[in-house]
């Protein structure tokens, strides 16, 4: 695990919801984790163990109560929102269980969004987005809206959106949770294939042992702590 350069380094990460109130919930407690560049890591554990919270915190979409998160040498926790947002836009892609596509945009436009945010000229963005959708086998669904696509197709759009701007890291929260086994495997194949091509680091939160079996590393959690890494 340490042979490759460490891309993500998490030290003493804690997350307490309703901090400072009588209703405190300790979601994460003293998490230490290093993830090498180009690796695929899965986080497993029972429901409510803090998997998604961990992913949210280390991906920078949520802020930890304590601890340090360093990605590619930059301390994410110390960044201001604007900078952290820029950092996400350039370096990260997201895949969520519920797809989280923008329902009013077509598949192509959904995939274009990260490119446009990164200032890619619209014409070029369109070409790249089309290419990304072709890569996930949706070349004939470019102008369909999410509600006109099946679950598997939607997740492929999400995958295309997560990789279209060539991020260093892809965060996937239960990416196959809403899919049947066959489709789930197909989607995972795509993610892993992209990782091979681009040396992207992939972090997957999952319940599915089959998926975990296909990743380089597995982290198991329980009650907000890592119990096996």
């Amino acid at each position: 695990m340490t042979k490759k350069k460490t891309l993500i380094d998490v030290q003493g990460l804690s997350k307490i919801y309703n901090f400072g109130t009588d209703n405190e919930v300790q979601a994460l407690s003293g998490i230490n984790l290093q993830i090498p560049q180009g690796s695929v890591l899965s986080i497993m554990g029972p429901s409510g163990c803090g998997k998604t919270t961990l992913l949210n915190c280390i991906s920078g979409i949520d802020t930890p109560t304590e601890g340090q998160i360093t990605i590619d040498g930059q301390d994410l926790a110390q960044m201001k929102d604007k900078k952290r947002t820029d950092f996400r836009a350039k370096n990260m892609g997201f895949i969520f269980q519920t797809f989280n596509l923008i329902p009013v945009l077509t598949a192509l436009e959904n995939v274009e969004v990260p490119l446009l945010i990164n200032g890619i000229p619209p014409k070029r963005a369109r070409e790249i987005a089309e290419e990304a959708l072709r890569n996930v086998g949706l070349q004939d669904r470019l102008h369909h809206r999410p509600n006109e696509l099946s679950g598997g197709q939607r997740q492929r759009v999400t995958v295309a959106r997560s990789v279209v701007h060539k991020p260093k890291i892809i965060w996937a929260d239960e990416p196959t949770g809403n899919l049947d086994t066959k489709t789930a495997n197909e989607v995972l194949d795509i993610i892993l294939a992209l990782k091979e091509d681009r040396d992207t680091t992939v972090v997957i939160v999952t319940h599915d042992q089959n998926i975990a079996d296909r990743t380089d590393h597995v982290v198991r959690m329980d009650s907000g702590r890592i119990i096996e890494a």
Partner: protein
Amino acid sequence: MSILPALFGIVITGIGLIMYRSPVERKMGLRNIGRRWSNTVMVVIGSLIGASMILGALTLSDSLSYSFDQITETEYGELDAYIDVKPAPDNPTPLPTINDAEYRELKQSLLSQRQWDGIQPRIRVQISPYTLTSDSGQDGKLKSKEYGLVLVGLTQEAQDSFGQTPVDIDIPDNPGEVIMSDLLADALQASEGDTIYVNNFDGERIPLTLKYIYPENPSVNKYKILTNPRTLTQYFGIPTGQYNNILISVQGGVAPEHYDGKQVKKDIESAVNAINIPTVTLSVREVKQEALDGFGISSLSIIFIAMSILASITGALLIVNLLNMLAEERKYELGVLRAIGMKRWSITKLFIVESTFYSIVSSTLGSLFGLGVGYLLVNILLNLFTGLVESSGNADIFDMQFHVARTSVVIAFIGAFLINILTSTAVSFNIARLDIVNAIRGLKDMAKKRRTWKWYLLTILLLTLSFIGLASVFGIDSVRHHMEMARTSTDTFASLSDGEFREKLDTTSAYMMYMGITLFVFTFGLLLARIFKTLRKAPLGVRHTTMQTVIMTATASALLVISIFMDKLPYVGKALLLSGSKVLLITSSLIMVIFTAMLITYGIGVIGQVMTYLLPFRRLRPILLTAFRYPSANRTRTFITLIMFGLTVFMLTMISIEKNMVNDELGQMRNATVIGASELMIVPDFSENERIDSLADDIASIDGVRQIQKFMSMPAKLADFKYKDLTPTKQIEMKNKPLASVNADDLYQTSLSVITDDYAMQQLPKLYEKEDDTKSDTDVYAELLNSPGTVLLGTDFRNKGFSPDGFIPPQIHSGDELSVLLPDGQIHKLKVIGLLSDEQASFAGGDPFATGLVISQATLNQIYPGPYVIPGTSYQLLIDYADGVDNDSITQAIKQKSLDYNIQVLQDVSQILGQVTSMMDGLYKLIQGFLVFALLIGTSGLAILMLRSTNERRQQIGMLRSLGYQSGMILASFILESSLLALLGILIGGSMGIFSMQSFTRAANDSEQTLVMTIPWLALFRLLVLLYVISIFFSILPARQASKMSPVEATNYPE
């Protein structure tokens, strides 16, 4: 009115049954209320504004009615009607009267009609100018009389029965003694014991003693001097037992439930028609109803009520939007409820229970606020009137009192409640039709393509409606024929005068034409869209949705074009100018706004696409992409929001343009240097010609007077002429209902007015029709002046009860000869060479000769050389001042000159125009202010929409933030989205308001009236920018809320 409580009872009973028999739905529905209080507050606020506006408008109407009722009651007391004794056309006399025997006959005839509370005769002398001096004999108290003073000779009994003052008054016993009100005495600087001089019919000054002064209510017509009838006998030569005025009392009060003015008039007219007194004409005048009608309460109230209805529609639309959003938010749970066996009706009941709470709270609060709104309106209006009265220097103060009728509160509460609950129920039915699977999976309901029996039923309904639309257009002639037949063969329309009937005929035709075409195009479009939707394969290889968009866009465009150019449709252009066409105007306005909103809703995707790719800022691209795409994806709510905005802006635009046009017209009159818009107008009562000529010469010699023109008008009658529809035979044909509201004889009465040569050739008053169309107006006037025996018809010949549509009655044509009976009993033949245009009779700036028959001085000299000591003859001197002079001092000088000649009435046109301008300006401001309430619904509706959107899009916003959208980008995206909606709403309302006014102006101009539409671009622009800024201001809160959302919301799944 009784239908509302009945409907309320039915609805409440239905809701009660639901609550009682459906405990599950009741519990869930009630719990939903408190589930998200922000929702509850928004729904309540949105719908209470409509209720407030309804009650505000009704309160204003109530207060006006109540105040005018009070004034009328105080003014007339027990008096309900007069019978005026007027000279018979062939028996001119300065003071026509009936004698005791004739009075008794008249009274008997009246009593045979109904039991009156009282009938009393009295003599009423219209006083010629008077002067007033004190006991000391000094003439320092001389004052010009500028009022229509009357000297009333009445018995103590008549005073007791018909007293119009708040105190008991003793009519002086001695002849030569008079009494007057304190207000009149103040105005005249008179004291008890003073001698006043009143002119008799020979112009002699008769001294009378002011016995005492009594206190008077300020609202009452105080310009009366009361005296014993013997004064009139002794000093004015009127024999005892002669009367010229019969007072009649029906029963006290003018409240509609107690009093029917029209029926009173009918009864008295029947009594008058039953007797024959050949020496005089008896003219019936019902005073209270006429006074109330004259106040014009209804037209002012209708404006506010129409606006409040509009606001209620906007409020209802807001409810539709909010409930749809609530349903969208709860889609998942509704889907689950359906999945586990809850019926559609139960889902509907859930929402009904919830909406009942919203409706009751909003209607109650709305009614309370409405009282406040009404109070505010009444006070603003009172200030407006008071300001106007003070500026005019008139001591009269309109005592407007705040008053709310119980029925108004009931109407507002129940009306608002029903609008809310019925709208909610309709929306709930639609919500309950959700697709279970899609709801659970969070997908949009896909279009169903199955052809079920409902599909066929709706298709047949659309086909039928299309057919009805077509049938309306092609059936107009048949309906007109049917109506004409009905008028002559049945009682239908019998109560209408011929003019009213023609107006009904034309407005009905216009409705059938416009609504028929609209219905046909709309339902045909829907039908096509429906059929294409269910086709297995859409034609031309396009997608079903695209095909539907194309069809509906084409339909909306067609309807828009039809509405914008509705004045070009047969019948419609003409009907637009009729007073009965208000509903047509409102309907077409609604259609215009709705279909523009529809057009834009369908095209908003394209608009967004174009803007996204046209704007050069690359960094803006992702913001634009989301900002413009949401409105196009959520068509229903976009459509409703645009209508909400569009409707209110439409009204504001129309009002602004109309205000501008009225101000322009009044301004032109004020600033005109031509004599037609004189600074001063003198309207003496009948008098001898020489006196007026001499006065005119004296006035012309005053420094600063540029021009003076004298116009004379005398009574005349059309002889040997019968209007086709108003012959006695025609009245008999109307079965048992004579045309009581039309006195055919009155229509033969007209006047003969003389236009001066200078005025005719300088001003060339506009003509509507000429005997020979190839002639110029100058030629026609040259003929009028140079060929004695020629006549122009005045404007009233276009609309005198029998021809409101702007056409000369078919019996009179240019080129015809008219027989005119003059007061000397001679009949003269005059040749009609043209008809004056309507605009010559416009307010204040109108020409003194605009009505009746217009002849030249040469013609008058030939047919009636004078002297003109004829009752009913009047003169008008139009006086024009030179530029840059001191108007006030010249006016004073002219008044003094007039006084020397005992000429009494001076009318300062500039002052009147100034007052009218200020009054109109204030009224328009009030209307605009009232509309702001409606705008509140529009703007808050937009804010609520955006606020709901932030909640609805939580996950998407989180996702966008995760992907790298800065919070500022989310803020910008939301503000851009609301900007787009606000701007499009403003564009729709503004442009349609302008188009609608253009349509009206075109119709007016096509009908030969010259109406210039001037758009107050700057004022309009400022107004609309202000509206935009307010809308955006309201949208900042939701936009900020959205921008502050954490990216982690992406992983928060809906509750």
